[in-house]
């Protein structure tokens, strides 16, 4: 808890939390939402396709969305760490935060498996027909991202500690 309090009181933590402009904390929250839209948006596109809703069309060209997804992921990794620096105890003392991280890891593992199945050696003109395993994994990936969004939102309502500094005092 002392370590978390030190992070809270670091110059960066104080700046993010206490700067009274929308360009500090609120803007970082917006970036986290933007990254969420990009990451899960690309996943919606690829997984809906992999579920077979566009079965008369090729899926290969969608691989070009992957760099877009990683840009979104980078935005969220950075903005997520900044939010964590502002309120480390709020997330790190909440079990839901670790569930969220686990859901993200699981979603990425499934997505990479799926990418190998549908993109590897894909002829960009070849019509895509998913098998049952691809469909199950695509559905599961989307469910994991939905869970990530849900757990992320619930973090704002389920924390038992807001500031480590307050607990120590």
């Amino acid at each position, binding site marked *: 808890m002392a370590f978390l309090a030190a992070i809270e009181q670091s110059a960066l933590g104080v700046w993010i939390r206490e700067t009274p402009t*929308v360009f500090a904390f*609120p803007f970082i*929250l*917006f970036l986290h*939402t*933007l990254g*969420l*839209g*990009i990451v*899960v*948006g*690309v*996943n*919606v*596109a690829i997984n*809906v*396709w992999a579920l077979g*809703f*566009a079965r*008369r*069309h*090729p899926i*290969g*060209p*969608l691989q*070009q*969305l992957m760099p*877009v997804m990683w840009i979104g992921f980078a935005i969220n990794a950075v903005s997520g760490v900044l939010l964590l620096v502002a309120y480390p105890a709020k997330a790190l003392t909440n079990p839901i935060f670790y569930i969220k991280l686990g859901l993200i890891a699981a979603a990425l593992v499934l997505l990479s498996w799926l990418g190998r199945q549908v993109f590897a050696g894909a002829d*960009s*003109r070849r019509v895509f027909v998913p098998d049952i395993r691809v469909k199950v994994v695509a559905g599961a990936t989307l469910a994991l*991202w*939905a869970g990530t*969004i*849900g757990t992320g*939102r*619930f973090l*704002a*309502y389920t924390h038992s500690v807001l500031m480590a500094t307050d607990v120590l005092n």
Partner: protein
Amino acid sequence: MQALMNWIVNTPASYFVTTWQWAWPICESLHFIGLTLMAGTVGVFDLRLLGLAKGIRPGAMHGLLRFGLVGFGISVLTGLLFISGAPDQYFYNSAFHVKAVCLALMGINVVLFYRLQFSAVAAMGPNDDAPLPARVMGGVSLVLLIAVMCAGRLITFYRPPGIIY
């Protein structure tokens, strides 16, 4: 306006979101899931108009917009629930005003796209470039989508002092 807000806060919807503890976070989660359905269909369609994933013809992607429409419906319904819970927090909120204007502009952009560009875009084959007006509309759509997210996320920081009903 006061009469309208008084009516809103006495609806069952308002009672539901303000009394059940988990209604708000569940609706927020659904609001964001609706957002990602739009980003993944409308946003990706816009990116195709701008030249990404050109191997797929826009007509093929267009079929997936129905998922975006479902997402839009989810977000509108949950959004109305938020407003029903605390109408003054939205009606007197400049971030919400900006969001509403951006949504209206998005609607105008969609109507213009279907009236002026859709037939040309639907006829495009794989690897074809979209006509310049369609590319511009795709870009406008993406910018507005991001602006809606930004203004939406900032609503909570522009809340007016509460009004007692």
